[in-house]
């Protein structure tokens, strides 16, 4: 089920009530586990089996890793986990993509290959929970962490509903220890958790779905040729939409976990105030970028084997990171562009090691970063390369036949919301939400909370799925 649904409201109220009952801790954990399976089954019950497969394989792989005496045996257990998880991901997420590309390749060499119809439904959140379970086996393999003490704690780590389908991608060392002792949210945690959930849902329902998504759809999902204003407005709208959608999910998830007494990591740190792309990736989808760094970039050699190897590892990481987002070459292009940006930044920093920008240059570099990030969003949002080129040509004023697409209201709402998001990120770039909230007058917090909740109610969200569910 999605957070922005009436079903979730009732579900979450039941979970909170159950969790507050004076029951033994093990019973409470079993309740949470069952609730999490129900949460997942509410999309498509048979796919719970995939969760079980992923859970059981990694549980036994980690047990095998601990018991193994020889390096080769350890290696085999690790490979079993990686192959099982990537196999699931490959079959369900990339099966059709691989088949289509193979067919195209055969066609290119003159072989007419007609594969059987292959209709696969993508299990929601599979990219997230396979990465979470893989990090468990890999941490044990890399001797960074001991395996969980019992299957219940481990299964709950994999399945815990706040992070299950769209992250934050949690590591076992972040969550499993929290299951060791009885936890119940304090009154303050519960209320602040509810406030975070309100903020997250406001981002999703009001800003992303009600206002920004439409402007992006009208340009990206239509046959019309956009001019510069429409192309930029739609792309900026998407930059705001995807932030509000995904950061909104993460904030809601963090709030939901906090209401139950659990802590989840930050996933976003005001990314549109990033200055440089290294900075951007320290602020955007932090749990994915750090996962890719720890389990892909560093094992590929990281920055320890010379410049050439570093650039190669960087590009490989970003290309695969792009592919992780979706089975389409446009996502690979998105990742590739980010890889090029990161490589260029690295080269520039080596060349101008002593450069320190002044305040104006600092802001200018930040705006340049945001602009270039928007160029990458074109490939992320467009369903095809041809559409991406049309929008890019529009952004650079090259669509002579363009006619206006977005209404004055759309343009104003995109400018106001996205301008507000970017400004907020700059004001908050060196702060935490908690520090600002702690300094705010209680009356102001009360009014803001009420207005956010009221806006959620009157926006009448249609329960649209979060964008990242498809990844």
């Amino acid at each position, binding site marked *: 089920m999605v957070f922005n649904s009436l079903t979730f409201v*009732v579900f979450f109220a039941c979970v909170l009530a159950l969790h507050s009952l004076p029951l033994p801790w093990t019973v409470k954990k079993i309740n949470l586990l069952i609730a999490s399976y129900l949460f997942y089954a*509410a999309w498509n019950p048979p796919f719970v089996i995939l969760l079980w497969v992923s859970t059981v394989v990694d549980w036994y792989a980690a047990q095998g890793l601990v018991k193994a005496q020889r390096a080769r045996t350890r290696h085999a257990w690790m490979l079993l986990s990686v192959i099982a998880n990537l196999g699931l991901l490959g079959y369900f997420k990339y099966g059709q993509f691989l088949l289509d590309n193979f067919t195209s390749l055969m066609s290119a060499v003159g072989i007419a290959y007609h594969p059987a119809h292959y209709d696969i439904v993508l299990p929601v959140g599979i990219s997230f929970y396979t990465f979470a379970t893989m990090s468990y086996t890999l941490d044990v393999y890399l001797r960074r962490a001991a395996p969980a003490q019992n299957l219940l704690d481990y299964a709950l780590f994999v399945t815990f509903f706040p992070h299950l389908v769209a992250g934050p991608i949690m590591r076992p060392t972040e969550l499993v220890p929290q299951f060791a002792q009885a936890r119940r949210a304090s009154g303050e945690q519960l209320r*602040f958790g509810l406030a975070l959930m309100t903020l997250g849902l406001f981002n999703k329902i009001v800003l992303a779905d009600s206002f920004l998504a439409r402007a992006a759809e009208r340009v990206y999902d239509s046959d019309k040729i956009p001019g510069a204003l429409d192309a930029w407005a739609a792309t900026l709208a998407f930059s705001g939409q995807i932030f509000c959608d995904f950061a909104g999910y993460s904030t809601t998830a963090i709030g939901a976990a*906090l209401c139950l007494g659990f802590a989840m990591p930050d996933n976003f740190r005001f990314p549109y105030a990033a200055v440089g792309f290294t900075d951007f990736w320290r602020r955007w989808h932090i749990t994915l970028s750090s*996962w890719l760094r720890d389990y892909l970039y560093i094992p590929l050699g990281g920055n320890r084997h010379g410049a050439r190897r570093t650039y190669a590892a960087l590009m490989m990481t970003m290309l695969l990171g792009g592919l992780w987002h979706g089975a389409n070459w446009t996502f690979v292009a998105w990742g590739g562009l980010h890889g090029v940006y*990161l490589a260029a930044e690295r080269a520039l920093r080596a060349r101008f090691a002593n450069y320190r920008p002044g305040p104006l240059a600092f802001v200018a570099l930040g705006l340049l970063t945001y602009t270039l990030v928007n160029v990458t969003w074109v490939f992320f949002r467009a369903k095809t390369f041809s559409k991406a080129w049309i929008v890019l040509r529009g952004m650079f004023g090259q669509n002579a036949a363009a006619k206006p697409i977005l*209404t004055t209201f759309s343009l104003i709402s995109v400018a106001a919301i996205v301008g507000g998001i970017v400004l907020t990120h700059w004001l908050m770039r060196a702060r935490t939400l908690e*520090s600002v909230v702690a300094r705010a007058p209680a009356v102001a917090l009360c009014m803001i909370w009420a207005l956010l909740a009221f806006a959620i109610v009157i926006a009448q969200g249609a329960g649209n799925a979060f964008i990242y569910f498809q990844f």
Partner: protein
Amino acid sequence: MHSSTSSFDRGAVPDRYARQTAADRPGVAQPVPLRPVPAQPWGRILIGAVLLVVLLVAGWEEYWRAYGVRPSIANNYGLWAIQRRRIDAGEGDATVLLGASRLYFDIQLPVWERLDGRRPIQLSFEGTSPLKAVEDLAADPEFTGRVLIAVEPDLFFSGYEYRAGAIRYALKESPSQRIGQWLSMHLIEPYFAFDDPDYALQTVLARQPWPARPGLHSFIRVRKLSETEADRNTHLWSKVDTDPEYRALARRIWLQNFEPADDDPSPAEALKIEKEQIARMAKAVAQLRARSVKVLFVRMPSAGPYLEYEKRNFPRARTWDALLAATGAAGIHFEDYPEMQGYNLPEWSHMTRAEAERFTAVLYRIIQRDFWAPGAR
């Protein structure tokens, strides 16, 4: 990926809630995260916020009720899916109504039930050609009943689908969506008038008198026209009849459609589309009739400029007559029956509720007399 802070960054100013993220800890096991709660009187803040939300929502509700809106069931895909499932849950021999808004608003299910003894299944959707829904029924062997298909020419012969996703939604509806639909129908929709897409925040803001963008044709979107009940029995909203200003607005919205638009298909393309729609309908009807399903078309009444537009763009001989000839099915055209004419259609397309009740009885009797009674033609 570089793991240190950008050298361009002046660095964060530490505060008492500052904490590291995984970005700051490369290549190590990540510890249990910190999740501090800002020091504030959260209990009082929550109580104040709840009271304020209650007041704001009450004010919003009162505002829309004063405008004439009453709580009604949301006319959405979930509601359609509930009715669609009836066919596969033991009511395969039912009478199914398939059309666009005229069949949807102008047939009153309680009147039909009173005359027939059974309540039909209403699967019409406003602004949407019924073709795909007919094809869906044709492919469903569970359905062996009777089907009344409404022809609203501008939608039927153009294949236009404002509500294109209902069938797919019904097939793919998740348990969570089903539960949400039930909860909404029982806890929200019967009590809150503002819970209507026409009064959603974005919709209300978007229809304010913003300056027109040069070069962009401004188009007023269709406003609320109907009220729906739990089994999709629907009628024209009384405000369309009783509020002259609102009625004028509804008429103005229709008039927009009668003017040529940039994205209209060429006459040749329009003809091709018409023929495709008729051919597909003929195929679906043949499938239904092969299972002994009784199929009957009905051309629902329209009036004024709407009727003129339909006659001009979808002449009867080229569309209605061709449809009946291609399908071999029977049809009722309102112009052929004096008792189907002369109704009050405030915005030229739909009847008032009272008129719809009268019309339902008339249409039902015609159908029984001439088509569906034993021995009828």
